[in-house]
């Protein structure tokens, strides 16, 4: 078990002694014959965070995380790493604000450098109607103590002179900023939570795909996997883009469609962008990584997909969004682009809930905003798994909300998943 405490002193000591004292970050485990109290299916950010908080907050340590590939191979390692809590609706805002507070404390909590950078996020405003909508959102953020700042065009231009303020079609009129927003090193989130969970006794089992559930009389008794059957008192599914495929094995159909989202990074540049900037008239968001690459993304490809790659029209669409607000991006060359499979829900909001099968729980539907939710998702899912009661900031994320007409539709576009 890795108990290495990371510190400047340790780095110095290792530098002087030939780096022979480092240990693996977490313990690679094999399934226990007599099973677990809780099995988490899916070793992404949310699954690993759930295991960590189960052990840390609730003292439940006889836990396994089962991952089909290697941990962090899913969306947690594919996203554009933006964190923020600038939501409008009461079902969402307190949840994302809890998440941001957990981010603010994460590195101390885990003793792991996740390169959390609260560089701020700035949402550009392009019309008077949008100004009204954003001011309303800003008020909702203030109610949740999330903090926000309204910037007039002049201030926006002073901060970022490279912006095309007077674009003929989409002039920049103002911006709503959240100074506490920012970016995180995504892989480090998976590794940090894995290390924290593993140190508290959680088994992280890789190359172990869940292929079915053992269900008797409506109760889940464990899972079938490529490493054999594993018993569990309780199973929590947390597989992001694979939600429908996995839950179908328990006979449960979901209000979810899978879609592909692409992301892009340019060659390394000198520091030009010390913030996250989003385009308000099209879909484009951009930040600069510590290596210097401009990391950006935009819309979904819009058709259902389980392929972790997209098509060229979206590349053109995203890049033209970038050109509309920061024409200088046209001089940078694209280094890499990739895709990830999102589980898009019918209202754009997620689920953390029990299911009609006893002892089987579900966490999913994170669409393309699930990275920022990682700490709170794990925190609230662990709370539900340990206590049978939803955490107070996650009470709206129920699977039956469409039946009850209690949608959480931030964008107000209705049950058309590719538009959320």
């Amino acid at each position, binding site marked *: 078990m890795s108990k290495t405490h990371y510190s400047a002193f340790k780095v110095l000591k290792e530098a002087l002694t030939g780096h022979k004292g480092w240990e693996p970050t977490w313990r690679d485990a094999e399934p226990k014959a007599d099973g677990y109290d809780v099995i988490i299916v899916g070793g992404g950010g949310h699954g690993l965070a759930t295991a960590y908080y189960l052990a840390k907050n609730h003292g439940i340590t006889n836990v396994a995380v089962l991952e089909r590939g290697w941990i962090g191979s899913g969306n947690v390692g594919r996203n554009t790493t933006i964190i923020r809590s600038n939501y409008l609706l009461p079902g969402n805002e307190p949840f994302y604000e809890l998440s941001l507070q957990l981010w603010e404390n994460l590195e101390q909590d885990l003793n792991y450098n996740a390169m959390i950078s609260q560089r701020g996020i700035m949402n550009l405003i392009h019309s008077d109607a949008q100004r009204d909508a954003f001011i309303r959102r800003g008020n909702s953020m203030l109610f949740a103590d999330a903090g926000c700042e309204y910037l007039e065009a002049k201030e926006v231009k002073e901060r970022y002179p490279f912006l095309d303020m007077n674009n003929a079609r989409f002039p920049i009129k103002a911006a709503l900023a959240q100074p506490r927003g920012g970016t995180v090193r995504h892989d480090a989130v998976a590794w940090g939570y894995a290390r924290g969970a593993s140190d508290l006794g959680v088994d992280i089992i890789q190359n172990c795909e869940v292929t079915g559930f053992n269900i008797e009389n409506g109760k889940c008794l464990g899972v079938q996997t490529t490493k054999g059957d594993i018993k569990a008192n309780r199973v929590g599914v947390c597989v992001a883009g694979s939600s*429908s495929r996995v839950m179908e094995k328990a006979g449960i*159909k979901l209000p979810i*469609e*899978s879609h592909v989202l692409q992301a892009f990074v340019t060659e390394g540049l000198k520091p030009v962008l010390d913030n996250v900037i989003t385009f308000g008239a099209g879909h484009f968001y951009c930040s600069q990584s510590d290596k210097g690459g401009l990391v950006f993304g935009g819309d979904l490809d819009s058709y*259902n997909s*389980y*392929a972790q790659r997209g098509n060229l029209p979206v590349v053109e669409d995203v890049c033209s969004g970038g050109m509309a607000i920061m024409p200088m991006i046209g001089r940078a060359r694209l280094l890499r682009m990739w895709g990830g499979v999102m589980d898009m829900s*019918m209202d754009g909001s997620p689920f953390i809930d029990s299911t009609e099968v006893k002892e089987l729980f579900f966490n999913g539907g994170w669409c393309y905003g699930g990275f920022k939710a990682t700490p709170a998702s794990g925190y609230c899912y662990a709370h539900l798994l340990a206590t049978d009661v939803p955490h107070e900031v996650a009470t709206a994320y129920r699977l039956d909300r469409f*039946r009850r007409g209690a949608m959480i539709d931030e964008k107000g576009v209705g049950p058309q998943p590719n538009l959320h």
Partner: protein
Amino acid sequence: MIINHPLLGPRDSEEFVYLGSTDLIDRPTNWEKSAAAEDFYQYQYIRENIAGDIQELWYHEQGDQSWLIVTRNTLTHEIKNVEFAQDFSRAKGRGK
């Protein structure tokens, strides 16, 4: 992706608007019955979300404005068949 339109030949998928699975054709007709609320809930919100071949509705907005049924693999994006939605729907015994 290239969609092989039955009349217009190979067209870029960018000319189309995507709606989703052909399940959306089967809108419940029993709106006066007590089971209607549940049927409409299933129709509107619950998805098969298949990994593999699916039949789906594409609208040729920037072309002849026809609705097409495209059989496509969601794992590979390979398009296997394209036909008019009208023919498909009539074969199911629906009006149009």
